[in-house]
């Protein structure tokens, strides 16, 4: 427990944490500002997507905000997981803990558990910022915010959050495992991003295989609309969201087993 609490205390003030969730929330704000600022063109322009104002129109805005957070958050989570795991090797802090007699696997798993908590708080923070900004934007744009208290939308939010959190945590676990195998922060981040986009492009050619890959499964687990994979995949909706969620959990646990197993056996040099 003290390892987990310590890991949380280390993550909270970290620049990577502040940057990741600050960026996510900041981009939501920017998008809402852009929507409000260009609402005249959006409403009146021929051929413009008519649903852009949905970003600031409740109760639909809830889904839009979540969709954005979980979509971009997938990429951010890979990078975040890789940054945290890789820095333990790059800075040598794992070495110091091991030299004190700490269990390597316990240390790595406690670190990841803390990442999971930080991700939950970060998603929630970004969502709250998104809702507040959307409400302000709607008010400025003269759109009613009466839907903000829509009961059905509010009741569905916890499940959406939970699914989204599991999916995002899975992508973070992929980054975490990759950086652990690479024993490097930069290599972990680079390979994590490459996997993220590589899987997307592979989906164009090998849809039957790629639908079982982590980022596509993450997309499927949250209903397929969040865009964990940045380009639409020809894999399409091929499984129920519950099956996808189970497979996401398998990837999550598998990544952690790989990271812990490798950490346990690795020769720590340098």
């Amino acid at each position, binding site marked *: 427990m*003290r*390892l987990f*609490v*310590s890991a949380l*205390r*280390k993550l909270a*003030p*970290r*620049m990577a944490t502040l940057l990741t969730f600050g960026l996510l929330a900041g981009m939501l704000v920017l998008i809402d500002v852009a929507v409000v600022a260009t609402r005249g063109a959006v409403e009146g322009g021929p051929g413009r997507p008519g649903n852009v104002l949905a970003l600031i129109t409740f109760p639909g805005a809830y889904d839009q905000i979540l969709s954005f957070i979980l979509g971009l958050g997938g990429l951010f989570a890979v990078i975040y997981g890789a940054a945290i795991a890789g820095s333990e090797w790059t*800075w*040598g*802090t794992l*070495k*110091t*803990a*091991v*030299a*004190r*007699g*700490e*269990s390597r696997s316990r*240390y790595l798993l406690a670190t990841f558990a803390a990442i999971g908590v930080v991700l939950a708080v970060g998603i929630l923070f970004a969502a709250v910022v998104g809702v507040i900004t959307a409400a302000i934007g709607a008010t400025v744009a003269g759109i009613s915010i009466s839907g903000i208290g829509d009961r059905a939308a509010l009741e569905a939010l916890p499940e959406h959050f939970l699914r989204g959190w599991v999916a995002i945590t899975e992508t973070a676990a992929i980054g975490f495992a990759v950086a652990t195998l690479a024993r490097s922060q930069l290599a972990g981040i680079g390979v994590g991003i490459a996997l993220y986009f590589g899987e997307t492009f592979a989906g164009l050619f090998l849809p039957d295989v790629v639908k079982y890959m982590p980022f596509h499964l993450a997309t499927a687990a949250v209903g397929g609309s969040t865009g964990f994979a940045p380009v639409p995949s020809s894999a399409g909706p091929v499984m129920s969201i519950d099956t996808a969620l189970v497979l996401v959990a398998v990837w999550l646990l598998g990544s952690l087993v790989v990271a812990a197993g490798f950490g346990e056996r690795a*020769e*720590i*040099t*340098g």
Partner: protein
Amino acid sequence: MIDPTLALATRGLRKSYGSRLALDGLDLSVPAGVVYGFLGPNGAGKTTTMRVLTGLIHADGGAVELLGRPFTRRDRHRLFDVGALVESPAFYPYLSGRENLRALAASGAPTPAGRIDEVLEIVGLRDRATDPVSRYSLGMKQRLGIGGALLNDPALLLLDEPSNGLDPAGIVAIRETLRHLASIGKTVFVSSHLLAEVQQMADVVGIIASGRLVREGSMQDLLVSEGVVRVRVEPAEVATATARLARLTAPDRVTPSRMEPGWISVQITPDRTSEVNRLLAEAGIFASGLSSGNDLEELFLTLTEDTTSGDPDGTFAGIDPSAGRLAPNEVLS
């Protein structure tokens, strides 16, 4: 058979990195309650040994005993009684010194409340404890690293180059701290390149070369038995002088220096320096330099010369040439 008087022992320790043999049957015996100086040129296997002793890597063969008990892959709890600083100190740069020690205390052996402040006091960082480590100098990071090693009040302290980056006052302070720890029964195992520092600090010395122990013993015994007279002649006369000087002692105790052309080391007690001079003069060879002493550096160079590499300006990897050489005829206390 475990010797209970030893705080640390290795028996036939072997380790290879691919085809390169890093440890080749290393046998170390570190008595409890002493400062043990662990010396060797670069690539001799010091850091590999440190890594094995702290469980960072695992030996291919041989055995390690820590504090009177076997230490294997499954015995990580044995390290709860060990404090270590391996290679460079490692910290989270964005956390303060105190927060880093708190994070460290969360791993391994439980740390008593208040110990972090005690340690910060010991290493002289109390005033800077709240500054981020990224703003620390190299010496301050080194002190914090030593503080981290002291966190669990260990019975055995393993320190890799503890004086690295410290200013003279810091070196003296660390030396006194380590001496104090030994005086209260702790065992301090120090790997260092600063031979003069080790000579002042260590009770027992182990010298390794090419992954093997080449000499081990108390500092006093080694220096008494390993007196060296160094003589400088014209490079063209080295062969003749070496043959001549072999009459004073065994031929294998007369060693022309490969790194300092013209210098010859003769392993005899310093009170026979005049004999060296006379013998050479009788052969028509006149020394242009002569020095003698019981010097750890001389001993180190003699024992490890085959494994050290020179460079054109006469310095060589592995040893700080400015540190530790005694003036000719200086007697060590």
